[in-house]
C-alpha cells in the first residue's frame, strides 16, 4: 500500500522528467528510423522549428514582453524563455565584437540528465531541437537567426554551448495578390 506521507514529490520536477523521457524516446526512435545521425539532427531541427513558431506566441502571451531593441535584448529574452519552459538558467556570454552573435552556456541541462551517448552516435546532436526552436521562434518576430551547438557535455566537452547568430531582419512580406 502506498504510504500517504510520501506522495509524489515535486510536480515541477516530474513535469520536466516527463518531457525529458519523452524526448529521449523520440530521439531513440529517430535513430532507429534513420541510420544516419545527420538525418536525425535535421529532423530534430525541423521539429524544433515547428515548436518554435508556436511557442513564441505562448511566450509573448505569458510575458507581455515588448519589442527587442537589439540582440542583447533578444539574448536576454531567449535566456528567460529557457528559464520559463525548462527551468534552466543559461549564461549569455562570448559576444562577437559586432554584438550580433552570442553563446548560451548551460552548466546543467535537464534534457540530458538520463542520457549517455554510445560511441556510434558521436555525430548526433542530441539537443538539436533547441536550435530549431530558437530559429522558429525568432523567425516569427521577424528575426532571422542561425544557431548551432559548439560544445556538448554529452560528448565530453566541459560544458554545453549553444551559439546564436543574427542573420538579418525580415521585412513584412505581403502575401502575393494582396495590397
Amino acid at each position, binding site marked *: 500500500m502506498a504510504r500517504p506521507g510520501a506522495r509524489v514529490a515535486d510536480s515541477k520536477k516530474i*513535469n520536466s522528467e516527463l*518531457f525529458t*523521457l519523452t524526448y529521449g524516446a*523520440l530521439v531513440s526512435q529517430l535513430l532507429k528510423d534513420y541510420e544516419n545521425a545527420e538525418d536525425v539532427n535535421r529532423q530534430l531541427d525541423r521539429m524544433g522549428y515547428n515548436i518554435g513558431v*508556436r511557442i513564441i506566441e*505562448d511566450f509573448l502571451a505569458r510575458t507581455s514582453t515588448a519589442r527587442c531593441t537589439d540582440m542583447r535584448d533578444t539574448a536576454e529574452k531567449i535566456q528567460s524563455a529557457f528559464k520559463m519552459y525548462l527551468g534552466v538558467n543559461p549564461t549569455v556570454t562570448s559576444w562577437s565584437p559586432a554584438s550580433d552573435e552570442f553563446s548560451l552556456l548551460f552548466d546543467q541541462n535537464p534534457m540530458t540528465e538520463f542520457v549517455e551517448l554510445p560511441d556510434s552516435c558521436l555525430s548526433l546532436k542530441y539537443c538539436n531541437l533547441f536550435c530549431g526552436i530558437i530559429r522558429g521562434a525568432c523567425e516569427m518576430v521577424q528575426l532571422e537567426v542561425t544557431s548551432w551547438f559548439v560544445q556538448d557535455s554529452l560528448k565530453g566537452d566541459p560544458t554545453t554551448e549553444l551559439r546564436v547568430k543574427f542573420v538579418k531582419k525580415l521585412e513584412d512580406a505581403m502575401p502575393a495578390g494582396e495590397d
Partner: protein
Amino acid sequence: MADDALFDFLHMEIVSHVTKSDAGLLQDGDEAMSKLEQIGYSTGYRFIERLTKDLSRFKDELEVMKAICKDFWSAVFKKQVDNLRTNHQGVYVLQDNKFRFLASISNSRQYLELAPKYLVFTCGLLRGALASLGLTCIVTAEVTTMPACKFQVHLQRA
C-alpha cells in the same frame, strides 16, 4: 504552467512526424501507429519508475490501477481519470472527460476521425507504465465525443 505548453507541442510534433512520410504523404498505417505506441511505451516504462520510487509496493492489481488513475494521470495530464470501471476479470476502462491532448482540438464532429492518432502515444504510455509495475496488458482507446475518451486495458493473465 509554462512547461506544459512545451510538452503539448512536443507531443504534436511526434504525432505529426510519425504520421508523415518523408515525401510528406500521410500514412495512417499500422507501422506509424506502432512507432507512436513504442515511443509511448518506453516513456511510460521509465516515467512510472521515477514517479513511484518513494512509494511502497502495491498490494494488488486494483491498487495499481487506482495509482494509475490518480498519481500517474495527474502527473501526465494534470487531472485525474474521471471514471474507472472494471469487470473484475482483468478489463479496466478509464474514462477522461477532458483529455489533455484533445482539449485543443475543436469540439465539433469535424475532426473526430483525426482524433485517434492523438491517443496512441498515451496507449503506449499506459502499457509501458503497467508493464513496469508487472502487469502485461493490451491497451486500446476510443473517442465518441470530443474531448472525452476511453482507454480500455485488457490485462493478460499468465
